[in-house]
């Protein structure tokens, strides 16, 4: 049995090493002096320097993109989970014509290539004077967030036992009341999972944010990091520090909510 256990540990290690090494290297390098980044890299650092983080938050004002990302991702998540929950409840529980078509429609939209709608959205936002504003990002984000939330929530609502609602209906409670008082409290784990996944997608989104923002005051985290590379030397230390900062909330979410995320991913088979 000992051999078996050791083999198991070895298996875990072979799986983990390639997955975690790039992350380890990123974190470690972000604490290394710029001059040493490309000179004789050592696996274990002999000194940790905070220079890059200081430069990031002192010189570059990296708080602004973080704030922008939080606002945009938060607003999109709130809006799409709110609207999506109503829609998903109806699709999961109510009997009416057109339901199947609606589901197919939602699925089809979730497969839209983002690049296909960049040009009209740009022209539309330009007409509305909403380029480089928060609403100008939240609206485009709904294109992928709404289908995602509806798709996930339909799955979660269908898993809820119908008996409670039926009992409530017999008591004369209306549909809306039973939605508010019975279904939503029961469904909160599903709502939380959906919100987490939606937030992750928004936090990571790049193409729309790159297309519809014009300056550092509205860049989201991915755009800000991607545009670090300038005419001035590629500031690898700061880029990696920013990468760590961008990864930290995501890593925290994964650590706390990994079971939920797996449940969400497999239930909805959402797009990557």
């Amino acid at each position, binding site marked *: 049995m000992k051999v078996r256990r050791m083999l*198991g540990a070895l298996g875990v290690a072979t799986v983990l090493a390639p*997955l975690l090494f790039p*992350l380890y290297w990123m974190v470690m390098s972000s604490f290394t002096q710029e001059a040493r980044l490309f000179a004789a890299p050592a696996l274990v650092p002999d000194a940790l320097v905070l220079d890059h983080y200081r430069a990031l938050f002192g010189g570059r004002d990296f708080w602004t993109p973080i704030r922008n990302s939080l606002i945009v991702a938060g607003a999109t998540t709130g809006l799409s989970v709110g609207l999506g929950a109503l*829609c998903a409840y109806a699709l999961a529980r109510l009997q009416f014509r057109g339901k199947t078509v609606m589901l197919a429609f939602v699925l089809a939209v979730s497969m839209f290539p983002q690049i296909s709608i960049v040009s*009209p*959205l740009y022209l539309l936002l330009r007409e509305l004077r909403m380029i480089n504003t928060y609403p100008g990002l939240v609206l485009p984000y709904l294109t992928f967030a709404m289908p995602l939330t509806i798709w996930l929530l339909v799955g979660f609502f269908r898993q809820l036992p119908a008996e409670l609602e039926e009992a409530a209906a017999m008591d004369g409670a209306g*549909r809306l009341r039973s939605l508010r008082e019975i279904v939503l409290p029961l469904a909160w784990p599903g709502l939380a999972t959906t919100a987490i996944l939606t937030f992750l997608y928004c936090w990571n989104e*790049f193409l729309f944010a790159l297309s519809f923002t014009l300056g550092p005051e509205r860049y989201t985290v991915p755009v800000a990091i*991607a545009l670090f590379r300038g005419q001035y030397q590629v500031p690898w230390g700061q880029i990696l520090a920013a990468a760590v900062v961008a990864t930290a909330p995501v890593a925290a979410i994964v650590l706390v909510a990994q079971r939920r995320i797996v449940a969400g991913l497999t239930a909805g088979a959402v797009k990557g």
Partner: protein
Amino acid sequence: MRNEARLGWALTLPALAAIAMVAVFPIFWTAWESLHFHDLRMPWLGRPFVGMANYVEAVSSERFWGAMAHTAVFTAATVTLELAGGLVLALIVDRFSRGRDLVRTAVLLPWAIPTVVVALVWRFLFESPAGIVNGVLLRLGMSPPTWFADATAVWVPLILADVWKMTPFVAVLLLAGLQNIDRSLYEAARIDGAGWGRQLTDITLPLLRPALLVAFIFRSLDAFRVFDVIYVMTGGGPGTATEPIALLTFSSLLQNLRFGFGAALSVIVFVVSFIFAAACIRVLGRDALMERVP
């Protein structure tokens, strides 16, 4: 039940209207735009209707076909590696129960990280002349290429980055499929004397087929529209050796402001995706995807 129908419509309408406004309406706008000459940098030329001219220009340009070829190469390579790697990863993780939480976290992390960050980290690993990959290769006595100035070698970090990020996602999907397989089937096979290989080909793979197909469709659709990782890591270079169709479309639109031409490219991307998805659903059986909703 008329009340229920009314309520159903009332509840679904806001969400569906939002989707229609931000996703469906723009698609039609793109199609209309693609039939016009519209260059925002030359306002004096107006926005004349030009029929299919933009499409003709696209399909007669070498750069367009190059971009399509790069997209196809990227899609084929990443989807193959991710499905194979995801299967292996899922089989390994399925084997042991100890440390599964740790493994699951490690598997989810790369998937959850912004693609932009993944691209930069892999660029850093492969940076010439002194990135760590080159350091290791030199120590092994090899002479590594200048990765990002070599039209062939540049695919290695690109594909590796995408595979690193997305294989875990595939593994999670397949793992769910594996855990749905009735364990007694394996017991029976073992009693019949079937080895590990036979069990894999006779039980695991056939029963995993739907999960594999779903993963295949989602990964392919996603790889076909690849943008982030290439924009950040190579900018489509060297030359245009790694430029995918989405990047060509983006630069036509937002760098050159050729909205008519860019819209034509957008429509082509859309139509190809649509045909691919339709074909897959056809092969898969219409219900297989809808069944994903329990």
